[in-house]
C-alpha cells in the first residue's frame, strides 16, 4: 500500500537531520507535483474514455513531456551548489594535484551523507578528486542514521564504510557498545586540525551554525539581535519557529538559557527545568516546532514565520533565491558533524584513507567554496577568497559571537531533555 511505503520513506527521510541536505524549493516541488497530477489525470481520462480518440493522446504526450523537461531544467538549475552558496559569481576551485602515497589504494569505499545539494557539493569537493588520485572508487548513498548503524553492526551486515553523523549521535551510540572503528590518525594531517576536532571514534568536519534568521521586510527599522530580542514578542511581534523534540531534533535549550539572562560561558551545564520555563515564555508565539532542517527555511521563505531558528546553510539557500531574510549571528551556536566508521566496515582501510583525504586543506576549502559551511583544516583559510571567508560560520568575526555547542552534554542528557519535551509540549 502506498501509505506504508510512504511512511517508511518518510521515516527514513526524517533521519536526515543534519543541516545541509538540499534546501528544497517548494515552488519547484509543487510545480512537479502539479505536472504529475495533470499527467495522471490526463492518463486517467484516457483510460476512462478508451483510446479511440487521438486528440487527448497528443495532449497528454505534449503536456507531460513538456512538463518533465521544464522541471528537469529548473531542478538542476537551483539544485546546483553554486546557486545555494551565498556567492553570486562562480569561484574557481583550487585543484588537488597530488596525495601522499599512503592514501592510495584499490577497491571501493561506501560513503553515506545527507544528500541533495550538499552531497552534490561533497561529490565535487571530495569524491571526484579522491577517486582520481587514490584509485579507490567512491560509492555514495544518502541518509546516515546511527539507529541504522546499530542495526547493521548488530546483524553483522554493515553496508556503510563511512558516514557523516551528528557528533552527539556518535557519542550516544558509543555508549551502547562497540559500534565504531577507531580513527587512524597516522594518515591524517593532524598538524593543521585542532585537537578539539579529533576524537577516538570520529573526526569532526563541517562546522555550521544554528542561529535565527528574520524577515527584513517585516523588521525594517530595528533589527533583532540576540536571543532576548527573539523572546521579545512585543518589540518583535510575529510567528516564530524553533527546533522541537521529534524527528531526531533536539530543542534549542541553549537559546532559552541565554534568553533568560545567562552569559554565554555559563550556559553549560544547562539547567533543563529553567530552560523549559524560558521556552514557555515564547511558546504561544511559536507556530511550529520543526522536526526537519528544511522547515524553518521554507517557513521564513513563505512568511509563515517571521523569525526562525535555523541552520546557516539553509538560510543561505533561500537568500540566494532572493528571499528578504537576514541572519542574526549573535549568540547562535557552532555545531559540528563528524565522520565515523561503523564497526566491521568491510572497506575500513579505504574509509580511513578517505577521512584523511577529505580533511586535507584543499578538499576542505573546495567544500566551503561550494556551500557556506566551515572547514576543519586551518590551512584551508589561505585558499578561500576573503569575501567568501568572512561569511562562513568559522570566520573570526562570526565565530566569536557564537556559543560552541557541547555535544558531550547533549549525549549525556538527551533522553532526559526529550522525555521532558513530550510532556512540556502537551502541557
Amino acid at each position, binding site marked *: 500500500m502506498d501509505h506504508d511505503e510512504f*511512511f517508511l520513506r518518510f521515516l527514513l527521510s*526524517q533521519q536526515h537531520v543534519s543541516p545541509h541536505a538540499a534546501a528544497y524549493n517548494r515552488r519547484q516541488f*509543487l510545480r512537479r*507535483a502539479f505536472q504529475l497530477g495533470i499527467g495522471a489525470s490526463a492518463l486517467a481520462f484516457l483510460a476512462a474514455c478508451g483510446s479511440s480518440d487521438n486528440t487527448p493522446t497528443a495532449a497528454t504526450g505534449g503536456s507531460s513531456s513538456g512538463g518533465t523537461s521544464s522541471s528537469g531544467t529548473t531542478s538542476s538549475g537551483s539544485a546546483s551548489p553554486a546557486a545555494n552558496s551565498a556567492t553570486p559569481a562562480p569561484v574557481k576551485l583550487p585543484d588537488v594535484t597530488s596525495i601522499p602515497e599512503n592514501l592510495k589504494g584499490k577497491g571501493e569505499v561506501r560513503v553515506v551523507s545527507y544528500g541533495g545539494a550538499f552531497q552534490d557539493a561533497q561529490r565535487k569537493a571530495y569524491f571526484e578528486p579522491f577517486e582520481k588520485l587514490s584509485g579507490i572508487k567512491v560509492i555514495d548513498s544518502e541518509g546516515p542514521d546511527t539507529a541504522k548503524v546499530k542495526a547493521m553492526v548488530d546483524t553483522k551486515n554493515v553496508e556503510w564504510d563511512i558516514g557523516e553523523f551528528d557528533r552527539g549521535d556518535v557519542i550516544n551510540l558509543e555508549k551502547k557498545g562497540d559500534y565504531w572503528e577507531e580513527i587512524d590518525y597516522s594518515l591524517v594531517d593532524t598538524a593543521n586540525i585542532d585537537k578539539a576536532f579529533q576524537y577516538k571514534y570520529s573526526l569532526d568536519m563541517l562546522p555550521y551554525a544554528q542561529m535565527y534568521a528574520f524577515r527584513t521586510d517585516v523588521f525594517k527599522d530595528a533589527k533583532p539581535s540576540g536571543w532576548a530580542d527573539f523572546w521579545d514578542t512585543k518589540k518583535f511581534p510575529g510567528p516564530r519557529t524553533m527546533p522541537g523534540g521529534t524527528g*531526531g531534533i533536539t530543542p534549542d535549550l541553549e537559546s532559552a538559557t541565554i534568553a533568560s539572562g545567562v552569559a554565554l560561558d555559563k550556559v553549560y551545564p544547562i539547567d533543563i527545568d529553567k530552560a523549559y520555563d524560558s521556552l514557555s515564555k515564547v511558546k504561544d508565539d511559536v507556530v511550529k516546532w520543526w522536526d526537519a532542517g528544511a522547515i524553518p527555511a521554507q517557513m521564513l521563505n513563505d512568511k509563515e514565520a517571521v523569525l526562525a531558528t535555523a541552520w546557516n546553510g539553509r538560510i543561505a539557500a533561500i537568500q540566494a533565491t532572493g528571499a528578504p531574510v537576514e541572519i542574526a549571528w549573535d549568540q547562535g551556536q557552532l555545531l559540528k558533524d563528524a565522520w565515523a566508521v561503523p564497526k566491521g566496515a568491510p572497506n575500513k582501510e579505504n574509509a580511513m584513507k578517505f577521512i584523511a583525504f577529505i580533511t586535507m586543506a584543499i578538499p576542505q576549502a573546495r567544500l566551503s567554496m561550494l556551500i557556506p559551511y566551515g572547514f576543519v583544516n586551518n590551512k584551508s583559510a589561505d585558499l578561500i577568497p576573503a569575501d567568501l571567508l568572512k561569511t562562513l560560520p568559522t570566520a573570526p568575526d562570526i565565530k566569536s559571537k557564537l556559543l560552541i555547542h557541547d555535544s558531550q552534554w547533549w549525549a549525556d542528557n538527551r533522553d532526559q531533555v526529550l522525555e521532558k519535551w513530550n510532556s512540556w509540549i502537551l502541557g
Partner: protein
Amino acid sequence: MAESTASVSIADQTESAGRNRATLARLRREVQLRYIAVVIPLILYLLFFYAYPVIAMLFRSVSEPTWSLTNYSHLVQTNVYVHVMWITVWISIVVTICTLILGYPVAYLISSVTTTKSNLLIVLVLVPFWTSILVRTYAWMVLLGRQGIINELLQSLGIIDQPLRLLNTRFAVYVSMVHILLPFMILPLYSVMRGIDRSVLRAAEGLGARPSAVFRQVMLPLSLPGVAAGCLLVFILSLGFYITPALVGGPKDLMISVLIAQQVDLFNWAFASALAAVLLVGALLIFVIFNRILGVEKIFGEVRS
C-alpha cells in the same frame, strides 16, 4: 434372473457412485492443494518479511532490558504516552466520521449513475489517490498558509484583516487527513452499493415509503457492510499517520507514530516496540469489535462481490 440383474446393476450403480464420490473428493483435494500451492509463496513471504519482524518486535518489547513488562508499565504510568494515544484515537475518530459523512453521498451517486459516468467519477476519486501523500499534504500547506489562497481570498474580500491561523493547527490535520483518506472510504462503500439491487429501492417506493424511509430502512442497512469496511480502513490507517500531522499539525497534535520514531532515535528500541505493540493491539481490537458486530465475511465478502 431379472431380480439378480437389477440387484447387480444397483450394486454397480452404488459402486460407481462411490467411485465417483471418491474421484470427486480426490479432485477437490487436488484443486484445494493447487490453491494452497498458489498462495504458498505469499504465505512464505508474509511469514518471513512480516510475521517474523513483528514477532521479533513483540518479543523485544518484553525481553529487553530484562524479561519483564517494565516497558508496558512505563508506558501506562507516563501520562504523556496515554495522552498521545488518546490524541491519536480522537483524531482517527473525527477523521473517520468526516470521511463517512463526505464519502457516503459520493459513493451513492457513483453507484446510481450509468456505467460511463460512474467510471469517470471513479477516476476522479482515484486521481488524488494516485498522488503521493506528501504532495497532497504540501498542497494543503499552500492553501492554508498565512499567505495561502484561502487567507488571501478572505482578505481581498474584506472578510478578515489579519490572516487566520489555519496551517499548523488541528483543523489542518483534519482537513488534509480527510482528503487523503477519502478514497479508502468511498471505494468500499461504492463496491457494496453497486451490489444493492435497485429494484428493492423501487419496491419500497412503490409500497409508499418516503425517500427518507427508503434510505433509513432499506439503503442504509444494505450498505452497512460498506460503511463498516470503509470506517475500519480509514480508522486503522489514521492510527498510523505520521507525515501529515507532522507537517500541517500544531504543536500539540502529536500522534503516536511520531513518538515511536522519537524512541527509535533514542535507541530505546524495546520501549518503541512496546508503543508499536500497543498500536498494533489497538488496531486488532478495533477489527475484532467490527467483526463481532458485522462479521468479517460480511465486511470483506460483500466488498469482494
